[in-house]
C-alpha cells in the first residue's frame, strides 16, 4: 500500500536521509521516532512532495501528495485573525468537502474567540479539527500530542484508532509510551536511514535509541 523509497535527501552538501525504505502493506498506526535533527520532519516533507529528494514515494501506486494525504505539522500553520469555526470552513472550501458540520468536530473549541487568543494546544486542536474533516487513506502526524492535555490526547488516540481500521497513520512523537501502546510497528531514524521494529521487538528500541 505505502512504499517510501528515499535514495538521498540533502541540504547543500549535508546528507540528511540516505537509502531509507519504508513499506507498509496494511492499515494501522505506525510510529516514527528519532533524536532531534535526525530528519523526522524532513522525511514527512519529502514524502509529501514539499521538499525535493532523490527517490519515490507512492500510496496504492499513486504519487503521494497533500490531495490524498493528511498532514499535521508539529507547528500547525493557522491564521490568528480567524475563529476556529472560520478556519474549519476555510478548510472545507479548500478540501472541496461538504459544508462544515460543527457536531462532527473532534475537539470542542470556543466559537467567539480569535485563534490568536488560543493556547498552543488549542491551536493544534483547531488544525486537527480542520484537516480531519476529510477522510484520507494516509495521515502524517508530526508530534500531534505536543501541547495537548491528557483528555485531548485520549480523544485523539481514540479517533486515530478508529481511522486506523482503514487508513495508514504515521505518527512521530517523543512520547514513546503512547507509541508502544498503539503502534503496529515503529521506525527508528538512525544514521540517515531507518530501523524497523515489530511490536515484539519494541523492548529493544530504548537501547538502540540510546546508542545513536
Amino acid at each position: 500500500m505505502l512504499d517510501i523509497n528515499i535514495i538521498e535527501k540533502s541540504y547543500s552538501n549535508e546528507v540528511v536521509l540516505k537509502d531509507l525504505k519504508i513499506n507498509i502493506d496494511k492499515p494501522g498506526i505506525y510510529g516514527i521516532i528519532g533524536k532531534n535533527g535526525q530528519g523526522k520532519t524532513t522525511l514527512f516533507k519529502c514524502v509529501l512532495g514539499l521538499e525535493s529528494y532523490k527517490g519515490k514515494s507512492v500510496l496504492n501506486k499513486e504519487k503521494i501528495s497533500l490531495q490524498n494525504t493528511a498532514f499535521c505539522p508539529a507547528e500547525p500553520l493557522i491564521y490568528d485573525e480567524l475563529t476556529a469555526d472560520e478556519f474549519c470552513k476555510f478548510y472545507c472550501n479548500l478540501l472541496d468537502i461538504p459544508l462544515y458540520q460543527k457536531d462532527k468536530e473532534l475537539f470542542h473549541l470556543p466559537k467567539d474567540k480569535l485563534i490568536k487568543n488560543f493556547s498552543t494546544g488549542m491551536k493544534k486542536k483547531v488544525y486537527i479539527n480542520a484537516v480531519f474533516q476529510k477522510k484520507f487513506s494516509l495521515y502524517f502526524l508530526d508530534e500531534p500530542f505536543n501541547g495537548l492535555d491528557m483528555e485531548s490526547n485520549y480523544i485523539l488516540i481514540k479517533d486515530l484508532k478508529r481511522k486506523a481500521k482503514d487508513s495508514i497513520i504515521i505518527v512521530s512523537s517523543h512520547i514513546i509510551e503512547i507509541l508502544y501502546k498503539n503502534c503496529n510497528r515503529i521506525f527508528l531514524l538512525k544514521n540517515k536511514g531507518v530501523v524497523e521494529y515489530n511490536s515484539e521487538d519494541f523492548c529493544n528500541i530504548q537501547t538502540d535509541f540510546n546508542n545513536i
Partner: protein
Amino acid sequence: MKIDVKIIYTLILIRFRKSLAKDDYTAITLIVMLYLAVAYFAYMNFESIGNLFYLLFSDSILYHQKRNDFELLKVNKKYREIIFTEYILYGLPFFIVLFLKGKIIDILIILLIYGGMILSPKLQFKPIKYPFKLFNPYWHITFRKYKIIFWLPLILIISYMGLKHNNENIQFFVLGIVAVICCFPSFEREKIIEMNYAPYTPNKYLYLQLKNTFINTLYFIIPILLIVYLTIFNVNIVLFTLFAVSIPLINVLLKYCFFYNPIKQQLSFVFGIMTAGIIIITVLYLYRRALKNIKIIKNAGY
C-alpha cells in the same frame, strides 16, 4: 526630552530595519529621498491629485493598527507623545505640502485623527462576523487586522456629502477607495501547503479565487453603490463601477503572476491604476501567467 528624541530615532530605525538590512544607510537615504520626491510631486500636482493626496497619511494609521510594541513603550510616561511625534515625522513632508497649500484645517483634522487613534484604548471586542466567502481567508483577516469595517461609516459619510452637494467627483473618489480596499486581501498570500491541499486544477483554483473576490467585493461595494447611484446614474459612473469591481480581480491575477515577489505585484498594481487602459489590454496575458505560476506552485517543482 533628549531621551524622547533617542527613542523616536530608534523607533524609526526599527521600522526601516523591518524591510532593509541593518545599517544600510544608502537604502534609508533613498527611501527618504523617495518620500521627499513624492511630496514634491504632490505639491506640483496638488489640484489634479485631489483627495487622493490624503491617502498618504493613512500609512501611519495602518502602521498603528499593526504595531505591537505598546506594552514596551508604556514604560515611558510620555509614550503617547513619542508615538504622536513619530507619526508626525513620518508624514512631515506631506504636512509641509498641506501647509504650503494653506490647508491648515486639514492638518488639524489629520492631527486630531492621529491623536484620537493614539488616545483610544485597545478594547477587546467579540470578533465581528463577516459575510465573506472563506475560500480566501484574507478577507476576514485584513478586515480584522486593519479594522476596515470602521472605515465604512467614513466612506458612507463622504459619499453622503457627494449626494448632498451633488458632486460627482466625490462619488468617483469613493468608488476608487472601495476598489483599493477590496484589493487588500489579494496583497496577502495563502500558504503553499494550502494550495497543495486544494484538489482543484490550476484553472479551477484560479476561477474559485476570482469568484471569491468578486462576490466579496460585491458585499462591500453594494451598500456604497446605492448611495452613489442616488447622486449620479449615467454611463460614466456605470463604466467606472465596472472598472472598480475589476481592479480587485486584476489584483488577484497580479498576485499569482508575482507570487514570490510582492513588491513586483505592488509596483504593477500602481502602474496598472495609473495606466488603466494597458492593464485591461494585458488581462489575458496576466491570466495565462497566473495560471502557469499556480501550476508550478501546486507541483512545487518537485
